[in-house]
């Protein structure tokens, strides 16, 4: 019954979305307030209906109702409840339903929180959002119906892949979807602006919270995914430049660029056309990412649906959405007013260079991901692969100028500044960072100079963030608590986010230069070294689990005078026959100790267990930095100045208050 209710709700949602796609657009063209208001009601209704459908699916998963094919294929009686529920989106059809749900919820959000928007703009945004909904609802209903029944219903299901039976599955996909589906809102903003023929500072100011609303969860989702890969897939890998990872990283890079270019448009009215283009491209890359992951066009460890037929449908949707938007851009954007002027050394120029480098970085990831596909078409005889060696070689050097700029940017004045003035402000951080670089290079050895540089770069970024706060908190009369208390949330956001990049950079630098690894066969009582670690195998025994049998080995790890026990397991899942290794990780601010066992093997001294020992210095900083960035974004989002009511205009002259950052 629930499956049928869910299915029906979905069909109704499609009809509502179809109406929402057409009527408000007509209303905006004719100035008909009733039709425009219909857009808001329809958005709410659509969200409610899809929520019902999704809830039905989740309940079916929770109840382990195997008469529904999807549940039977991705869940089993022995599977713990949290993973029965999370399995709702641990498959293609369910995750498409999640996609559609987030899309509708964002649409409802525009209706609910967008009352300060120009009515025609809001109506057009809702209509564009609904068009995207129609496409995805149609895709879900006609090619990926999650509610298909299975008859006769099996007594037990095929369980979810054990790699996915993990807390990560509960949070990672929903966060990612909140992220890159969230960029649908900025896409709709951009298309609506093109239709209206205006992208003025007010438009940019209205759009900025939505950019943040998508950017923050995407940052969290990517950070969580990296963390999950680290302890799930093991031995220190936290980023593999896999096509699916890249599919989430490209919208993030463009989203970051969009965030910064929107500031220029909002503050100075410049770069409006560019901001629109970025908004279109960011969501287009989200769509292309969805295509990539589900069409089978590229091989990936992550690919969870490989179906070229579905790929055709998604490609058609991409051509429709992006093609129309870019066509509209070609037609309308040239006519839009170009904005204010700014000096070669100014905040605007800094942000423009920021965008330029981010585009180049996006190009690296994009070319690397899609080149094999392009080559297949152009020269099938010369099939190539693009893997981590390419990305590491090209991405890292290109990112250095950007990271250096991050600290300089906030010190630049709007419109016009002088090199000397900026230089004075940055003198102390620059000396400190250079000193750190020199010191580390000498102390750790010149062969580690690259890592030392990375650590110094991290320090440069963290100091820069401190400088922003320092300038705010030390007024004419010295340090003042009042100044601290009245710091705009957006300023705190900037400082947190930029510091976060520094922390992540430091973590990456430490991991690439100073990680240690030892792989060997061990027997109880033996000790092995890996970098600063001395690991002794204490014992091993067989242990049963809820849906698996395991061999568990215990270790004592000594480092710098302290000792810690770690445990590693090798599990055999009884239903599927899959085997996994659970690593023991000892976490500290300085880094992680990591021990994982393998199978029984013999070496020169007899039989034992394969043991892999790793030392991962500062690895936690990589994700902590991501968390700081997300917190920074959230802080900016909470800034009061974004939640302006009807724009206050004294007379026609003064623009509404615009935040400094």
């Amino acid at each position: 019954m629930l499956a049928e209710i869910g299915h029906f709700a979905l069909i109704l949602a499609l009809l509502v979305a179809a109406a929402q796609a057409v009527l408000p657009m007509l209303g905006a063209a004719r100035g008909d307030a009733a039709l425009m208001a219909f857009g808001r009601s329809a958005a709410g209704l659509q969200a409610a209906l899809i929520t019902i459908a999704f809830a039905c699916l989740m309940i079916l998963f929770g109840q382990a109702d195997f008469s529904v094919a999807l549940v039977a294929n991705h869940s089993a009686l022995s599977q713990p409840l949290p993973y029965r529920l999370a399995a709702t989106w641990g498959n293609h059809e369910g995750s498409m339903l999640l996609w559609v749900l987030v899309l509708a919820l964002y649409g409802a959000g525009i209706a609910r929180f967008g009352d300060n928007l120009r009515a025609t703009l809001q109506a057009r945004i809702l209509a564009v959002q609904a068009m995207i909904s129609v496409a995805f609802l149609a895709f879900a209903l006609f090619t990926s119906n999650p509610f298909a029944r299975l008859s006769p219903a099996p007594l037990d299901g095929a369980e979810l892949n054990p790699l996915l039976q993990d807390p990560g599955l509960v949070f990672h996909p929903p966060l990612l979807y909140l992220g890159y589906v969230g960029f649908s809102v900025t896409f709709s903003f951009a298309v609506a602006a093109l239709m209206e023929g205006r992208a003025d500072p007010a438009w940019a100011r209205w759009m900025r919270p939505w950019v943040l609303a998508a950017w923050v969860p995407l940052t969290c989702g990517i950070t969580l995914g990296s963390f999950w890969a680290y302890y799930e897939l093991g031995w220190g890998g936290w980023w593999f430049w896999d096509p699916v990872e890249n599919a989430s990283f490209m919208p993030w890079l463009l989203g970051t660029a969009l965030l910064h270019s929107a500031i220029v448009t909002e503050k100075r009215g410049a770069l409006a056309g560019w901001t629109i283009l970025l908004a279109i491209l960011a969501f287009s890359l989200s769509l292309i990412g969805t295509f990539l992951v589900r069409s089978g066009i590229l091989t990936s460890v992550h690919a969870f649906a490989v179906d070229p037929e579905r790929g055709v449908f998604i490609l058609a949707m991409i051509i429709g959405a992006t093609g129309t938007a870019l066509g509209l851009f070609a037609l309308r954007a040239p006519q839009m007013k170009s904005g204010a002027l700014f000096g070669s050394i100014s905040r605007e120029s800094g942000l423009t260079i920021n965008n330029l480098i981010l585009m180049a970085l996006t190009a690296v990831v994009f070319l690397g991901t899609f080149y094999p596909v392009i080559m297949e078409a152009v020269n099938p005889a010369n099939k190539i692969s693009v893997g981590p060696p390419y990305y590491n070689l090209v991405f890292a050097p290109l990112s250095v100028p950007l990271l250096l700029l991050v600290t300089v940017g906030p010190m630049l004045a709007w419109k016009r500044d002088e090199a000397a003035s900026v230089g004075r402000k940055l003198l102390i951080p620059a000396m400190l960072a250079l000193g750190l670089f020199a010191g580390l290079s000498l102390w750790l050895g010149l062969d580690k100079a690259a890592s030392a540089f990375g650590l110094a770069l991290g320090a440069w970024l963290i100091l820069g963030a401190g400088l922003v706060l320092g300038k705010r908190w030390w007024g004419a009369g010295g340090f003042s608590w009042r100044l601290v208390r009245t710091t705009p949330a957006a300023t705190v956001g900037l400082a947190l986010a930029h510091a976060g990049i520094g922390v992540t950079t430091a973590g990456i630098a430490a991991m690439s230069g100073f990680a240690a690894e030892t792989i060997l066969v061990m027997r109880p009582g033996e000790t092995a070294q890996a970098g600063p670690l001395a690991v002794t195998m204490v014992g091993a025994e067989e242990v049963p689990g809820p849906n698996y049998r395991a061999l568990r080995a215990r270790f004592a790890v000594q480092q710098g005078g302290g000792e810690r026990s770690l445990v590693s397991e090798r599990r055999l899942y009884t239903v599927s026959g899959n085997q996994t290794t659970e690593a023991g990780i000892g976490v500290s601010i300085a880094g992680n100790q990591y021990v994982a066992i393998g199978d029984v093997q013999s070496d020169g001294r007899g039989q034992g267990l394969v043991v892999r020992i790793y030392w991962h210095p500062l690895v936690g900083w990589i994700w902590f930095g991501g968390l700081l960035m997300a917190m920074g974004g959230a802080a900016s989002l909470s800034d009061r100045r974004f939640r302006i009511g009807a724009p206050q205009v004294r007379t026609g002259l003064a623009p509404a208050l615009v935040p400094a950052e």
Partner: protein
Amino acid sequence: MRRLVLALTLLAASPAAAVLPDEMLKDPAQEHRARAISKDLRCVVCQNQSIDDSDAPLARDLRLLVREQIAQGKSDAEVRDYVVERYGNFVLLKPPVEGDTLLLWAGPFAVLLLGAAGLVLWRRKVPAATPDAAPLTDAERAELDRLAGPRN
């Protein structure tokens, strides 16, 4: 430092391991070379992994092959060429720099340069910053203050 240490001991999952002790060469320098080369070779039967990371049987065969070649005294380039001769450029995770891949290697820098050139041209067409017009007269300033409100 001990006070700061979080004694969190996590249990986390990872699949079967890749390089095994019984494959490893005795000479650490050679083994280091073998690991480096392995990281650059794709496991052709896997979903986008290097032979160093993959536990597929063919990956193991190739790891052993790489070590055998190194032990025979072949250079890194010769070992790579040996594998490419059999599987093509597909097996290299760092694509070769050749005519076909020019766009791949040069593309990002081209974006940077073209974008920078575009910016420079755009700024040439538009004066760098409008030189300030003649300063406001007192009457104009008073009018401005009336309209926009007093400056903070």
